[in-house]
């Protein structure tokens, strides 16, 4: 039986909800905070900011990361920037406009109240990060500089060269490091969460595996926060770091946390196209490049001439042609589909004809090479290192790739999952981006959740638990979860089949990319849903993991992650099949208008689909949270 989910959104006008929530939330007095232990999993932007802030408030915090250092979390790779409604440039920005752009950008599939809160705290994030010493780009007068990003008509993106994520993460990491140095946070590095433990209906803690010696251990906490990032690596090839995975969220899902909108995945339009079969990942070229680069393909299919020899009238600047008001800055989902169509029509460029041009010749002519170099120098260098081509001389070649996942664990207004005491923040939750995320909004959301939302909501859950006993590590549920985890990892070693985890991951990724990627059809999804379980069966019978479980074994780590990706992949396809409409990153070929734009069905699908685990992802139960739009009008999203 499916249930209607309750978001616990406070009453009142949209602009007052967050203030009134904070006024009403229960508090834990400063001296009592140290009686509570909070487990924070992940030290990316969401996790580092949450762990540092909770420790500053006085909670005991244990922080976990599978990386060797908190600073290596995948947030480090974000390039372009972070949005905030500062309106420093007096170009008409406001909290309301950022809120509206984000809801519209998400194709009206996000929860208004969460998005408004995000826009409200965005301004505090910039203040906080500047105070931490983040060297954001400045103008000559010393004030902060901004650039514009896709899906917005104002300049509200703060940036630090092409390394905004790095600088923000280092800011949050340093704040966390201070708390570690002071003894307020205990850090568990190279330790991976492999299960969550629920006792009497509440999250009682987690089970982890030490990646150095394979030791499996439990940790108890009054509350647990998952800040474990997105699942874009389900596709195998993506812009995510090699070790990004869905295990933490998936294991929580198996213990009762609903998984929301798994089919909402973002395919980023500007990545370097695949060059050969050994390719292990794809590299993003920041969206900010679209500020000054023009996207085009030859008008004639099969045109083999080098870019410079194709005269202007024979080029199709298709984004400028189709979306005159946003042009090259059309939102990601729209730009990605347009690139796919250009390549599918035989007009792709490059040796494998699998890309489109992103051309800087005009900008270099207009601004001079120095200005272009100042803005994008490090990205150009990175491009040259990877492709051996010089983008100052020939256009970059780009193609869409899996980049970000809007879906994730369902959370209520307080960021609590459907398991009481288990919270989820950052990319790992589903909350703010609906069916499509706008550029520069993920960094904003991670830091909003970690710095400003969680620390204000967690007390509401903890306060009534003061001085009440909680289950200890000797509780049979912990022992049972540890035993199950041990058996699972030993199981991978015992199969002794013939194919490596990577081998299966590639095949799995190809199925999901082909049928649940940029364009989806009922027939394709049905096909994926018959191929995936079959391949998963082979995985269980024919996996080969060499080495042992008692020392560092990356093959074994990978096996556990691929196992979870298989199950997630099935749920992604089921979700995509059931959502019989097109919206944002979810494009169902059957649902498009005459011009090929996504056609939503607000009557039947203006809701969140939150899947409940039943023991088999093929039989998960689809629950819904209806989305109410009070502050914005549901409208067809147009960027023309």
């Amino acid at each position: 039986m499916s249930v209607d989910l309750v978001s616990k959104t406070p009453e009142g006008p949209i602009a007052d909800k967050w203030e009134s929530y904070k006024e009403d939330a229960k508090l834990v007095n400063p001296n009592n905070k140290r009686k509570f232990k909070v487990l924070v999993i992940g030290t990316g932007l969401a996790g580092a900011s949450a762990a540092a802030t909770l420790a500053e408030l006085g909670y005991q915090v244990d922080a976990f990361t599978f990386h060797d250092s908190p600073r290596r979390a995948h947030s480090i790779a974000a390039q372009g920037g972070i949005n905030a409604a500062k309106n420093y440039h007096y170009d008409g920005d406001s909290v309301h406009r950022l809120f509206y752009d984000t809801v519209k950008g998400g194709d009206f599939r996000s929860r208004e109240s969460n998005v408004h809160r995000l826009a409200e705290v965005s301004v505090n994030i910039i203040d906080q990060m500047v105070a931490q010493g983040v060297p954001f780009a400045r103008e000559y007068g010393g004030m902060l500089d901004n650039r514009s990003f896709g899906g917005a008509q104002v300049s509200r993106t703060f940036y630090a060269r092409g390394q905004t994520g790095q600088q923000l993460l280092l800011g949050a990491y340093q704040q966390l490091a201070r708390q570690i140095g002071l003894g307020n946070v205990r850090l568990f590095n190279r330790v991976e969460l492999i299960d969550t433990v629920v006792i009497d209906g509440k999250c009682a803690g987690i089970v982890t595996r030490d990646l150095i010696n394979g030791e499996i251990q439990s940790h108890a906490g009054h509350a647990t926060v998952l800040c474990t990032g997105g699942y874009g690596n389900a596709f195998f090839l993506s812009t995510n770091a090699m070790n990004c995975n869905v295990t933490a969220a998936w294991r929580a899902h198996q213990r009762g946390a609903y998984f929301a909108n798994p089919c909402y995945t973002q395919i980023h339009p500007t990545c370097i196209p695949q060059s050969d079969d050994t390719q292990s990942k794809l590299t993003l070229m920041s969206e900010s490049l679209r500020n000054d680069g023009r996207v085009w393909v030859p008008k004639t299919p099969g045109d083999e001439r080098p870019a410079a020899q194709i005269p202007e009238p024979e080029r199709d600047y298709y984004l400028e042609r189709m979306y005159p008001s946003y042009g090259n800055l059309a939102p990601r989902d729209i730009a990605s589909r347009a690139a796919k169509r250009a390549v599918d029509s035989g007009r792709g460029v490059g040796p494998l004809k699998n890309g489109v041009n992103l051309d800087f010749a005009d900008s270099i002519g207009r601004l001079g090479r120095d200005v272009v170099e100042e803005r994008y120098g490090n990205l150009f260098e990175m491009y040259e290192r990877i492709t051996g081509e010089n983008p100052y001389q020939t256009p970059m070649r780009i193609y869409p790739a899996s980049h970000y996942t809007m879906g994730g664990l369902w959370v209520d207004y307080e960021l609590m999952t459907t398991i009481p005491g288990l919270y989820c923040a950052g990319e790992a939750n589903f909350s703010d981006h609906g069916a499509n995320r706008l550029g520069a909004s993920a960094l904003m959301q991670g830091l909003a959740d970690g710095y400003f939302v969680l620390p204000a909501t967690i007390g509401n859950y903890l306060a009534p638990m003061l001085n009440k006993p909680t289950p200890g590590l000797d509780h049979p549920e912990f022992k049972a979860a540890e035993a199950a985890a041990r058996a699972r990892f030993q199981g991978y070693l015992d199969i002794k089949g013939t194919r490596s985890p990577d081998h299966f991951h590639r095949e799995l990724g190809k199925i999901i990319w082909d049928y649940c990627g940029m364009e989806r059809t009922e027939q394709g999804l049905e096909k994926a849903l018959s191929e995936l379980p079959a391949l998963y069966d082979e995985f269980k019978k024919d996996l080969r993991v060499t080495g042992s479980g008692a020392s560092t074994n990356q093959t074994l780590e990978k096996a556990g992650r691929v196992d979870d990706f298989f199950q997630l992949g099935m749920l992604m396809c089921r979700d995509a099949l059931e959502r019989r409409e097109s919206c944002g990153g979810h494009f169902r070929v059957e649902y498009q208008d005459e011009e090929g734009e996504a056609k939503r069905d607000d009557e039947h699908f203006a809701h969140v689909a939150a899947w409940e685990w039943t023991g088999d992802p093929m039989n998960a139960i689809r629950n819904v949270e209806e989305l109410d739009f009070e502050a914005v009008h549901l409208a067809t999203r147009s960027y023309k």
Partner: protein
Amino acid sequence: MTHLTNLTLKIWRQSGPDDGGHFESYKVDEISDEASFLEMLDVLNERLINEGQEAVVFDHDCREGICGTCSLMIDGVAHGPQRGTATCQLHMRKFTSNVEIVVEPWRATGFPIIKDLMTDRAALDRIVEAGGYITAPTGGAPDANLIPVAKPVADAAMDAAECIGCGACVAACPNGAANLFTGAKITHLNLLPQGQAERFSRAEAMVEKMEEYFGSCTNHGECEAACPKSISIDVIALMNADYLKSKIKNRKSLSRT
């Protein structure tokens, strides 16, 4: 796309911290010049697994030259032959056919080997924990534009802040010193107006923590050459100056309390 052929990889294998370790040679018959160095190791590992052997352990993650996880000595050079480039961004087009390539882990007392090519670099985190931050608890920050930062200052801070914490500077240094890493963090924070309040306590605490784990700098300059972000050794000069001053300033402020 062309291919390189007949490569021999001489790779350091070590089963754990207590094992002595040894080199093992592996043939790579053919690899695309578009492949990255780490993709070549992926191909090798796939083959080792197929042959029933244990894969070579090496650290890596973003493969975009930004997370600082990858860390290989290639032919005796930290991050290999291409300057200003992390191991993961090194591509096979920088090599030729028919050669032997020696692959080792970072070698430094501050970085004990965990297994094969993977080392423990946690000592770098200890240095940051000692003072590599600005104390600004969440919630109390003033409006960001209230603290103007002159563009040249912001740019210089950013140059230093680009450090990815990979430890190549330590690995390249004959003394295993971590001065470039520590100097970069101190320079980033000590140049900014927000960093002034803790400027000298930061310099003192970080330098002294660094000395607990790492060797002493004797100005070889190998660190700058190995740095994938080409961070300048000027940051070491600034660190040394602030450290010296800290000895006076911190004592003065102590006597006042």
